[in-house]
């Protein structure tokens, strides 16, 4: 099974995969080889690609779509980054700023989304650092 993560600017990742885990608006879903054709809308969530071997590829996906057809899983997203591309310092400041603003203005959905995005980035990047530590 081939998995790929595609952003408008380029193909972020393309390679063999044993399983792809995403979260659609209805909940988490995992694709194994031979999955029936599927199209889903993704939320702000982590996409995990389990490649052959002990590693896994994690990507922060901020909205987008997943298409499964012909034994190929394609994640399409306007904003997506792989774990090692996340700017941790920037994400951390963004999270703190968003959290701060949310405290004064808890109704603001835009800020809440920014917070969710920053937290997702940190989560994905955090996974990268912990897996690097096991080496």
């Amino acid at each position: 099974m081939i998995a790929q993560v595609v952003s408008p600017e380029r193909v972020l990742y393309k390679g063999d995969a044993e399983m792809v885990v995403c979260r659609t608006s209805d909940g988490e879903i995992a694709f194994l080889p031979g999955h029936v054709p599927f199209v889903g809308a993704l939320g702000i969530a982590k996409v995990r690609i389990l490649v052959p071997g002990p590693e896994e590829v994690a990507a922060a996906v901020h909205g987008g779509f997943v298409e499964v057809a012909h034994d190929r899983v394609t994640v399409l997203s306007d904003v997506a980054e792989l774990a090692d591309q996340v700017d941790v310092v920037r994400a951390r400041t963004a999270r703190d700023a968003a959290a701060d603003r949310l405290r004064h203005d808890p109704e603001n959905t835009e800020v809440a989304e920014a917070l969710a995005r920053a937290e997702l980035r940190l989560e994905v990047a955090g996974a990268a650092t912990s897996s690097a530590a096991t080496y």
Partner: protein
Amino acid sequence: MAGGQERILKRRIASVQSTKKITRAMELIAASRIVKAQQAVQAAGPYSEHITEVVRDLGAAGGSVDSPLLAPRDEIRRVAHLVVTADRGLCGAYNSSVIRAAEGSLREQADLGRDYALVVVGRKAESYFRYRDFRLDAVFTGFTDRPTYEDARKIGREVTRGFLAGEYDMVELVYTRFLSAGSQEVVRRPLVPLEQEVVEGGDARPGAEGVGPTYEFEPSPAAILDSLLPRYVEARIYAALLNAAASEHAARQRAMKSATDNADDLIISLTRVMNRARQDAITTEIMEIVGGAEALRAGKDSDHDSADSHPRSSA
């Protein structure tokens, strides 16, 4: 007097030479940017291909294809033009041919009795249409030589908003398509409402075996389509911006190359004129010297004669 002309020519040659250095540098910069812009066009290909595929899959999955972005309006009163030009000039006919195509389309729509709306990208289109007192609905500048997806998203949002709000009933995209470094063409494409052909057909149509794969959707196809179509519009705009940027660099490279060649020609012909002027000056100088010497000699001879024949003093 004659030496003065030579000095003026020398100064002109020096100025042409320094202009040539600038145009040559711009040519090289544009040439290197073409490659990068071309790569960006190619890198953006997979996303727009896949998003088109997903739109088709959805269309093939069932009759749920009734998003407002897909429905052509019965009565078209106002047509928006999304005109993509450059921020800077010095790129030959690049900007003017896009503007000419846009104006042609504006006139056609006016002949059909339709009102126009203008959404312009690039400072050149902005200043052109503003100067001629056109109404500009939205202006986007500052990124034409290096567009990002974020820029396309802003434009896409504005265009879909205007369309859905009923400010206009159709959107046409005018930009320059990049075919190769040697050829680009100005094209006019309908952007919104999306063409029905895009939606029909696709992977989910019955295959050779006669059984098409049945797709599962999460959430419903209609809900996916609603969030997918704006992305699709953005991807189309992004592709247009990238094509336009690559074309701009190609046009600039060509314009600067011919400017450099012209500077070379000018230097050659000016050098010739200068050499002739110098030769003239030298010839004149020699003539003057010879003439002067001759006159002096003649003067001396006649001086002798007159000294003998003209007793001025009491010598």
